[in-house]
C-alpha cells in the first residue's frame, strides 16, 4: 500500500512542473494566479500523502490545513493587487 501512495506522490510532483510552466510562461496574469493556486492545492495533497507514508496522518492534517488557508489568503491578496492596478 505504501508503494501505491509513493507512486501517486511522485506523479503529483511531476504534475507540479507542468503547472509551473504555466506560471512562468503563461499568457496574462490570471493564468499565473490560477496556476499558483493549483500548485498550492497539489502541495496540500502531497503533504497528506507524506503523512500516510510516515504513519503520522494526524500531524500532517494540521500542516495541510494551515497551507490551504494561507494559499487562499495569498490568492485573494494577489487578486486584490490586480484589482487596484487595473483602475490606474
Amino acid at each position, binding site marked *: 500500500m505504501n508503494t501505491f501512495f509513493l507512486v501517486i506522490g511522485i506523479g503529483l510532483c511531476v504534475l507540479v512542473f507542468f503547472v509551473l510552466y504555466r506560471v512562468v510562461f503563461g499568457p496574462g496574469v490570471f493564468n499565473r494566479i490560477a496556476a499558483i493556486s493549483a500548485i498550492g492545492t497539489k502541495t496540500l495533497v502531497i503533504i497528506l500523502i507524506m503523512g500516510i507514508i510516515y504513519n503520522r496522518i494526524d500531524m500532517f492534517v494540521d500542516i495541510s490545513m*494551515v497551507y490551504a488557508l494561507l494559499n487562499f489568503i495569498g490568492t*485573494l491578496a494577489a487578486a*486584490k493587487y490586480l484589482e487596484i492596478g487595473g483602475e490606474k
Partner: protein
Amino acid sequence: MIRKTDDIIIRTVARILVPFIQIYALYVIMHGHYSPGGGFQGGVILGASIILLLITHGLVETTKKISERAIAIFSSIGVFIYAGIGVLCLLLYGNFLDYSKLSVILNVTPAEARSMGILGVEIGVSFTVMAIMISIFISISTTEDHSKYDKEHY
C-alpha cells in the same frame, strides 16, 4: 492602499471564515507541545485572520474592531508575558525561564509546572507575533498618513 472590496461573495466568505480561522489558531497554540505548531505558528494564523479582514473589509472598518493603538499594546503585552515568566523564575532562585521553579506558586509538581510555564510563554509569543504581523502589513500597504484620506473608500 488597503481599499474596501465591493464584491459581496468575497466579503461574506471572509466574514464567515474568520472565526473558524481564529479557533484553529487557538487550537494550534494550545496543542503546541503535542502536534506541529506552537506560539509562533498560532500567532501567524491569528494575524492572517486579521489580514484577511483588512484585505476584504478595508482599513477603516477593521481598525474599528482592532485599532492600531491596541495592536501596539498587544505586542508589548506579549513581550511582557514572556519576560515576566522568565524573571519570575529568576526571582524564585532558578535560571531565566526555568519553569520547574514555578511549582511553588502554581502548587503542582515540577513536571506539571514545566508544561504550564511553556504554555504561558507560547501565549505571550502568539500575542506579539499576531500584533507585529498586522503592524507590518499595515505599514507596507499604507505609504502616508492614512487618517487624512477619504473615509468612504478606504
